[in-house]
């Protein structure tokens, strides 16, 4: 069957072909803006961050405490049962060292995106940054502690935690 295929289609273009108008094109800048709603669980999560607290939700059926919190347990498919105030410390589950920004341009000072497993939970990790350390010194399993903004600076956002820093023994 494939013996019948003689040529594969596709006309490659270079960026200059488009910029110089060698090939016709038309642009579109969508004006759509969005207003995203936090919802019940995240609404409370953010409000507690303003109070310098990390909260999770616990399911009695499977026993998990999850963060970021949600009002239902997706494993058991039932509403979960209570809010739990968690410690603001945890352990590095996995980390990386980023040299690029959100728009793929290079940044001078690398960031350390990390999944931090919050103390007192089994599966619950949150995404955040590790700071106040040389990226080369970060280790899997390292203990870290949240560094909060000052009370008057906190707005009820994940950035109310500036970053997590390693706890020295």
């Amino acid at each position, binding site marked *: 069957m494939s013996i019948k295929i003689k040529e594969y289609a596709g006309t490659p273009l270079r960026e200059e072909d488009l910029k110089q108008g060698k*090939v016709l094109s*038309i642009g579109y800048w969508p004006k*759509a*803006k*969005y207003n*995203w709603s936090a919802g019940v669980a995240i*609404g409370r999560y953010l409000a507690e961050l303003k109070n310098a607290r990390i909260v999770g939700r616990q399911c009695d059926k499977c026993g998990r405490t999850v963060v970021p919190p949600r009002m239902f347990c997706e494993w058991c498919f039932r509403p979960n049962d209570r809010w739990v105030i968690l410690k603001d410390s945890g352990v590095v589950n996995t980390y990386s060292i980023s040299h690029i920004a959100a728009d793929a341009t290079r940044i001078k000072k690398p960031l350390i995106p990390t999944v931090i497993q919050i103390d007192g939970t089994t599966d619950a990790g949150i995404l955040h940054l590790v700071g106040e350390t040389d990226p080369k010194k970060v280790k899997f399993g390292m203990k870290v502690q949240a560094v909060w903004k000052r009370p008057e600076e906190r707005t009820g956002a994940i950035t109310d935690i500036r970053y997590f820093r390693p706890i020295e023994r």
Partner: protein
Amino acid sequence: MKHVKGKMPVNFLYTAGVAGERFLREIKENAKILGVRCRKCDMVHVPPKIYCERCFERLGEWTELASEGQIETFTMCYFDADGNRLAEPEILAVIRLEGANEGIIHRVRKIRDQQVHVGMEVKAVFREKKDRVGSVLDIAYFEPFAR
């Protein structure tokens, strides 16, 4: 309850495509509207495509169409794309050019004291060559036309 505002930080650049490139270039260079013929379906498609959607055959027989045709349907538009009221209503119509089996959409202007109606004869008014860029707006509008 908390909200956050934001957007998706993207814009888009669309190529005209293989068929679109030829169609728009002909309008730009020569003020001519091309269609493409499908012999199997006995139809002329406009805007032209590299394939016939009905019989799925590859098409290559390009043909020049007249710049005149008849209105198949039309509407009067009182608002712009952002919802602001227009000073003068804009007439948009699906126009079947002579020689084609399909209509194209465009503006109709300069109707003066005539009544726009289905079946009305209109013809394309092209911009001057120096103002044409390779766009359907190289046709400024269609206007009524008496044979």
